[in-house]
């Protein structure tokens, strides 16, 4: 029992430190051979997943965890100085909710990569960078420190850019990675400037300490603008979305799946900044409407750009943009109504819908990208015009694709419908027009996935793929089956997820005072 307590106490840091340690140990383990390395990496991912679930169960039952680095005496300095200068991790229900997504997606990605990555060179580096991506995501989700958020954001973008360019022998890989890197470096530097603006005024970097001191002066407003735009750019909101299809289509399929989760970590940072750092001290209506407008633009332009695409992964990338719009819309409505009576009437439900959509989207979009990767693995093309008749031989892949496509289009009883119905019905009370646009976007989503399904899986067997289009190897099958099972389970029992994970997360996001008091206490 002592050991379990110790694990629980150190869980926030173990979740980061284990993959970090494993990331640098992977090249050394890789010298033993392919099997030991893959077993090592998969077991680390499984341990991290178990730790995350253990931590989540405790956080949701017993409240927030605060982990102080390098200190024997907690958050106070030995001299009794109470302004939090130490680096802390602050893990609340929203953080663990995001961490569950990241851990699951990383696990599925690593299992899938076992068979998918067959390149002669750089396999060990691939797993190193994949684990570093996990570290970046967990760090952004757990940190209670503004500068650490920037550091983990940069770790995440460096690792993901390097992985986008993993197949460096194709010119489009380096092109997509370069575009992604330039845009995300500029975005991250604006985040740094905004953090410097806040630090210059309040002399602390701790998120809770800045949040409790914030005055919403002119400089704070500039910092808010920089932070909100930079994180909205990193989560791929229209009109700053153009890097998304480039990077997503150039990356190997499992990386694309983790990139979706990475952009959701940026979305978490956006929500954390808006709700916890500024909260009711700012003009929530204006920022809320800004996020809503970004969300609606993302939904509509994303889906209409997806319709004419001919590259299967570019098409799915535009859908990723479109689906992020739902999350921004749901949580944006929550932010716009924050502090008013409307929040309890429908704002919280909208937030629940948006947050529930995050986990749903990570699972079904991950599944869809994996099926696209399975097609690429067998056919060596991403061009939809060259595909056809795969349903005859790749039956399981086709089944998984149907599950993912129905879920993303919001067809009951899959999980996409559960979160979308929460968004539709609560947003309708906020503004009926937005809700109608959201439904229209759902229709167009179904239309474009019908196109993909018809052109890839339906039709006669094509002579050029005779003998090539076989079922995928078992690790890829296991990864897809894992995600498909989660999608179906979450669709059949949505209230299980909503009651136990989503509602605490939404309340943690809206409950700013608890987050601030956990660090500032009586001070």
């Amino acid at each position, binding site marked *: 029992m002592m050991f379990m307590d110790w694990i629980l106490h150190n869980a926030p840091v173990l979740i980061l430190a284990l993959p970090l340690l494993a990331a640098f140990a992977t090249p050394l383990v890789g010298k033993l051979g392919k099997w030991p390395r893959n077993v090592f990496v998969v077991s680390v991912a499984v341990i991290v997943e178990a730790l995350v679930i253990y931590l989540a169960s405790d956080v949701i039952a017993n409240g927030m965890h605060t982990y102080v680095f390098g200190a024997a005496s907690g958050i106070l300095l030995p001299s009794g100085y109470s302004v939090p200068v130490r680096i802390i991790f602050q893990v609340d229900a929203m953080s663990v909710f995001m961490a569950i997504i990241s851990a699951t997606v990383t696990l599925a990605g690593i299992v899938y990569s076992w068979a998918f990555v067959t390149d002669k060179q750089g396999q060990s580096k691939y797993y190193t960078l994949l684990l570093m991506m996990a570290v970046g995501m967990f760090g952004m989700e757990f940190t209670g420190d503004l500068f650490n958020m920037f550091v983990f954001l940069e770790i995440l973008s460096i690792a993901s850019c390097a992985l986008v360019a993993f197949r460096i022998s194709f010119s489009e890989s380096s092109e997509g990675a370069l575009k992604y890197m330039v845009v995300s470096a500029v975005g991250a530097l604006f985040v740094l400037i905004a953090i410097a603006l806040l630090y210059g005024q309040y002399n602390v970097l701790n998120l809770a300490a800045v949040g409790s001191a914030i005055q919403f002066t002119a400089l704070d407003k500039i910092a808010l603008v920089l932070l909100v735009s930079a994180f909205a750019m990193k989560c791929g909101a229209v009109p700053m979305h153009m890097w998304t299809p480039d990077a997503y289509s150039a990356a190997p399929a499992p990386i694309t799946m983790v990139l979706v989760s990475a952009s959701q970590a940026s979305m978490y940072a956006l929500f954390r900044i808006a709700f916890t750092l500024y909260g009711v001290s700012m003009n929530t209506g204006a920022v809320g409407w800004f996020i809503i407008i970004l969300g609606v633009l993302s939904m509509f332009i994303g889906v*209409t750009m997806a319709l004419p695409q001919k590259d299967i992964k570019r098409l799915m990338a535009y859908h990723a943009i479109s689906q992020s719009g739902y999350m921004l819309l749901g949580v944006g409505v929550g932010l716009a109504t924050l502090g008013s009576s409307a929040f309890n009437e429908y704002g919280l439900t909208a937030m629940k819908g948006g947050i529930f959509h995050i986990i749903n989207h990570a699972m079904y979009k991950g599944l869809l990208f994996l099926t696209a990767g399975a097609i690429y693995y067998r056919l060596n093309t991403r061009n939809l*015009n060259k595909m056809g008749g795969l349903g005859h031989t790749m039956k399981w892949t086709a089944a998984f694709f149907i599950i993912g496509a129905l879920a993303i289009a919001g067809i009951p009883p899959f999980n996409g419908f559960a979160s979308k119905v*929460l968004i539709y019905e609560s947003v309708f009370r906020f503004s009926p027009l937005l809700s109608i646009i959201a439904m229209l976007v759902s229709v167009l989503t179904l239309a474009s996935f019908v196109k993909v399904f*018809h052109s890839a899986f339906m039709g006669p067997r094509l002579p050029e793929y005779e003998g090539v289009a076989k079922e995928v190897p078992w690790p890829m099958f296991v990864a897809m089956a894992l995600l498909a099972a989660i999608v179906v389970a979450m669709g059949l029992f949505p209230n299980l997820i909503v009651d136990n994970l989503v509602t605490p997360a939404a309340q943690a996001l809206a409950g700013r005072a608890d987050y601030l008091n956990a660090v500032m206490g009586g001070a």
Partner: protein
Amino acid sequence: MFGPLETGAGYWTPLVWVGSMVVVVLVTLVIRGLGERTAKNTHMKGDPFMSGNPEVSKENSHVRAGNIYWGFLKAMEPYYKPLMKWHNGNVNDYVLMFIMVIAVLLLAIVLPGVF
């Protein structure tokens, strides 16, 4: 665990939905079973009729992705033309859009406080 999901305006229970779907499928099967057995074997059922032209081989008759929704895209051309021009794949424009969003938001957030 199996209770309804409150949506603010109503509720959603997937299990009830699945159950009613099963009932619908059963009813459909029953109605289908009442039909004429010989109907399946009708001559030429399911063969395409190409205005009297000979039928193309199956490999060549697959509708490729580029042709799906051609009419929709043609009708929406005034909408798609500027949109495609905007997605020109130029990294300068990616940064420019980012800066423009920052500028718009600055005007929306900072200006109301100044005046």
